């Protein structure tokens, strides 16, 4: 199926990836190509087939004790922040 420009713009907005008009058109064409190729799945009858969620078939997910295992490492958490003020991450002003 082909993808229209409006849908491509909407996806770029949802993913928060800023694209200019030229890039939008290129992405539209490429994603359209990939979606066309994926149409091969229309041949497969999946009536009554359950979706495969996760890959672990042999091991059930085990609950662990609900306890603190880590903490008291504020400096480590903040060590890669692009911008910080004291113990806080900063972002541009969101409320005018």
């Amino acid at each position, binding site marked *: 199926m082909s*993808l229209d420009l409006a*849908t*491509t713009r*909407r*996806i*770029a907005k*949802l*993913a*928060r*990836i*800023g*694209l200019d008009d030229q890039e939008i058109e290129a*992405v539209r064409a*490429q*994603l359209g*190509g*990939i979606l066309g*190729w*994926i149409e*091969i*799945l229309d*041949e*497969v009858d*999946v009536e009554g*087939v*359950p*979706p*495969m*969620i*996760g*890959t*672990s*078939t*042999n*091991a059930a*997910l*085990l609950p*662990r004790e609900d306890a603190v295992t880590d903490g008291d*490492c504020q400096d*480590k958490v903040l*060590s*890669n*922040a*692009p*911008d910080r003020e004291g113990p806080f*991450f900063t*972002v*541009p002003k*969101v409320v005018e």
Partner: protein
Amino acid sequence: MLTDLTIAQAAEGLRKKEFSAVELTKAHTDAVEALNGRVNAYITVTPDKALEAAKKADSTLSAGEAPALTGIPLGIKDLFCTNGVRTTAASKIIGNFVPPYESTVTAKLLENGAIFLGKTNLDEFAMGSGNLTSAFGSVENPWHRKDDASVLVPGGSSGGSAAAVAAHMAMGATGTDTGGSIRQPAAYCGIVGLKPTYGRCSRWGTIAFASSLDQAGPMTRTVEDAAIMLTAMAGHDPKDSTCADVAVPDYRAACGRSLKGLRVGIPQEYDSPLMATEKGNDILAAWKKGAKILEEAGCEIIDVFLPHTRYALATYYIIAPAECSSNLARYDGVRFGKRAEGATSLDDLYEKTRHNGFGEEVRRRILMGTYVLSAGYYDAYYLKAQKVRTLIQRDFTQAFQKVDVLLTPTAPTAAFARDEKPEDPVQMYLNDIFTVPASMAGQPAMSVPVALDDKGLPLGLQLIGKHFDEETIIAVGSALEKAAGFTARPDLRAGVSA
């Protein structure tokens, strides 16, 4: 030369005091220094740390009771977080990220005495099959075609690890495999690459691409070395709920095990992609040779059918981008990574940061994933793909009722030249046609080099095993390796060229 040894040989030499860990490490840091400017296998090198660790390894060895990998110099794919050492995922967006913690897999290797030479190059966020999408430049495959100087790709995404091991710039390396990222570069570079069962190795501290598929594994020059490394890397980790609590055997003991009576399946659907390519004949011949070797070793060769094989790639290119779009949402320029300048609002900050920080292929996959998960399309694409994935897994379950292991080619071609890179992303994705099905089903699989094509380039065969039965693929792989007698080495490697 010390750089020519296998891990098994070096471990023995260290214990017999034929050479020291410092000498062994120095030989490798010298090789990296001589070759990395050209091969670009490493994004970050840590020779001083390596030599310091080697001194400690020598004292551990003198004291006796040293763990298996003591003093063995390895390359670490730059997707594993390493405490205090820059970890980039080959992306600009975290190009200066220095993790304050160590991934479980690398922590296990360090506990086992291994020495890290540096962080190896990869496709950005492990998305690619040619190591052409790294923000730190592409990697040169140490192999070249006969009488042809064209630069070939090392495969991807673990192309830096594969090239480093092939060029003797490391004795072994870690890789990660989501749809073939260990096995395909191993085949392109003439080395062994083992993707374990999903859940065999912890994913904690490994930068995520597609969490239901990502799995770490060893890349080495022999099957025995892969077995030694895997024994150190595998095992339960409470920090990864998908990491299985299944005992880790001594995988090395599986090498050389008798294959008498073992049933080897040949998937009948795997030959049609080869018929379609010009180079397919060499690979078909290598595949036949592999089957013959195993028959002579006492295996029974059985035709099997995996009817949903032809849908695996399309399914993968829905599920992997969906998981990637979700995993990569965290790179927003707020808590870590590179933040774009001049943003006027929070949304603008996200958009500019993510546009500037991600390369084209990563952006494409995030957008694709966002689309297949978005309202109105979820059922038609994502849910449908999850159902087809069930059918792909059933194919394997049914095949493994009749056979113990599957033998297939690893990739549809040998390594291609950088300038032969297809413009169409779909053509590029076809490189993973033989590796993706096993990934979708979570099976363990290994690529073993078995032959050279008519241009002198290595070709690999893939062994796919039952869940948590890495031992059988190691046993079969070591027999295949021995009988195939693959001793060729690339023209570009430590000690022979610079």
